[in-house]
């Protein structure tokens, strides 16, 4: 399935409507609406304390909303255990027994999750294949690298063949190779019809992995949809251009850069500005050449999460 394709026709596995949640005097969610559909990866973005974990707890039935309705597989997860049979959580921590091997961990956790003894071996093999852990099955978890620990953490959640998989920052502290491997695993699951909800602080990850993203701000989903559409709404045709200079500019060239709209970055050789238009590079290059600025490199930079969140919050004010 092409990434970013809206799944309006796929069945909804979870819906949250008009959710309000407060902790004492502090309101965390106010009027949040969200629908998760089968076969999609939904990335939840937001600053710390904006309610990402609260949203997870609502979905798993570990807390009730002050107001609003939560339905997971058609039922209220606070009132019945049925939705929990169809979902799994991958906690941010490595929720495994460090002195057990990968296989032993999956076996005991499968048992704790209520799998039948006759099914456990098969499910463990299946989960290890999905998480690409076959060659580490007999390693103690405490001896695994960070990436393999993350994979084992996810494999444990796959034992019950969940139709809704919740992941709380699943790739924190993972190297690029392990991250790509985890992404492949999650896409495989998505392609088999599993709904995947993950929280992340990494916009690149959301861009690379998710079909839709939601940006939590001011207690609700301030932005929701395919990442390309959201960035288009926020930035339009404007892009951040980064200049890398060959040498530090003198006063005259500094003035020229500022006149062209460039701002310094922490790196004295790097300057950036937001520009729009059909031929960004062509127009810029001629201006820069006229000003006698020696360029080493000129490139477009994708916006970072911090910048996106700032723009979203500005839009809400």
């Amino acid at each position: 399935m092409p990434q970013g394709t809206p799944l309006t026709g796929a069945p909804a596995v979870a819906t949250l409507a008009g959710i309000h949640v407060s902790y004492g005097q502090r309101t965390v969610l106010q009027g949040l609406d969200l629908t998760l559909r089968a076969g999609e990866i939904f990335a939840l973005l937001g600053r710390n304390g904006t309610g990402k974990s609260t949203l997870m707890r609502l979905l798993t039935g570990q807390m009730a909303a002050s107001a609003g309705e939560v339905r997971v597989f058609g039922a209220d997860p606070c009132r019945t255990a049925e939705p929990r049979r169809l979902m799994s959580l991958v906690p941010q921590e490595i929720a495994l027994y460090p002195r057990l091997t990968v296989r032993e961990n999956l076996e005991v956790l499968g048992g704790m999750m209520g799998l039948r003894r006759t099914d456990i071996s098969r499910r463990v093999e299946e989960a290890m294949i999905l998480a690409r852990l076959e060659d580490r099955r007999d390693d103690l978890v405490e001896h695994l690298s960070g990436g393999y620990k993350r994979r084992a953490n996810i494999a444990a959640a796959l034992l019950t063949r969940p139709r809704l998989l919740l992941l709380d920052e699943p790739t924190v502290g993972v190297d690029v190779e392990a991250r790509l491997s985890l992404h492949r695993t999650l896409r495989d699951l998505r392609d088999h019809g599993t709904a995947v909800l993950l929280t992340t602080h990494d916009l690149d990850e959301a861009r690379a992995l998710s079909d839709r993203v939601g940006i939590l701000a001011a207690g609700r989903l301030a932005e929701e949809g395919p990442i390309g559409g959201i960035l288009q709404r926020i930035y339009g045709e404007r892009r951040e251009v980064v200049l890398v200079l060959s040498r530090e500019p003198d006063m005259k060239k500094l003035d020229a850069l500022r006149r062209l709209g460039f701002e310094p970055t922490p790196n004295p050789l790097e300057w950036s500005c937001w520009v729009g238009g059909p031929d960004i590079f062509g127009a810029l290059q001629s201006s820069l050449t006229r000003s006698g600025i020696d360029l080493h490199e000129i490139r477009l930079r994708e916006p970072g999460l911090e910048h996106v969140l700032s723009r979203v919050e500005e839009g809400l004010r």
Partner: protein
Amino acid sequence: MIVPAARVMLLTLLRDRGALAMAFLLPPLIFVIFASIFSAAGGDQLRLHVGLADVARSPATARLVQVILQEPTLRVTFGESAGSEDVRRLVKEGAVDVGLILRGDLNARREGAPVLLVTHEARAIAGAIMAGHLQRLLAVHMPDVAFNQVLADLEAVGGITSEQRAWIDETFREKAAGTRDDPRSRTIGLVASESALPQNAGWAVSYYAGAVAVMFLLLAAVQGAVGLIEERRLGVYDRLLAGPGGIAGILMGKFLFLVAQGTVQAALVFATAYLLYDVDVPASFGSWLVTTLAVAAAASALALALCSICTSRQQAQVLSTFAVLILSAAGGSMVPRFFLPPWLQEAGWWTPNAWSIQAYSSALTPGSAFASLSLSWIVLTAMAAGALLLALAVSLRRRSV
């Protein structure tokens, strides 16, 4: 480097209120409790629990009954119609520390001493202490009885001449020497002693086998139960609560393992007692096994409840160590409970230790009443169920996502 390291420890302690309270409030509390226990054990507050039966029903024994009932240093279980067997049963079951059977008129000369002291091997020292009490009570409150004994002795020897005086002195010296070696057979002409159990050196050891077993079962169970806190910290609880698994399953699995571990530990203690001290476990194996399962269940559930309450490993280790020490001291695992002040003896019945010791004593004593043994089993099982429910309730409240 030194100051920052100390600062880290200080801040960590200050911010863990549970650990802070345990570090500074529990020590004086523990001191007060232990001071109560051990000052009573070594001081003059010892109040023996005596089972009393007046079988002779003579005016002199009736007076002695009244004297004993009014004696503030004794706690007396006395029934007007109680007989010798009732007293022996109470001693055997551990319901009283020592038994006293007034079986003959104190002023009459007859075969055997009119007062019979019934002791239990596991509380042999209680017999010696009671014999001392009797001597004092008779001398202070009933000197006529003691004098009559002397007169009777004089009459028996037919008057006093200087040669006779020398002979009497010699005779009393021999009597005194004969009784010094065996406190249980000591007599002042009035008191004889018997054991409630068949002669076997193992009875005394069996008390301590039970007392030590339950204490170490508690300690070992706590070490195992600390894993609960790790699982909570690692997020295993969150994983299970979000999916089809449940905390009840984890708790029950841990509970069953700890019961099995405790059973093996108790078996090792009693096997040693059997091999080295002739504690006859095989003769009562069935009762011993049920008792051990009940004791292990109570210890395991209590350990799980303690660890569920704590929020950090540090809290669990400190709290459980203090809890095990207090339960063991108040429940009789460190010193027999009759050494404790009466209020602490009563409080001891709220500990698994007291019921475990009672259960092992009944299980290993031939001819013990099943009612006494089954009551101990019921109480221990109820403690296990209550503590397990508490652990479950607290664990469900503590889920951390």
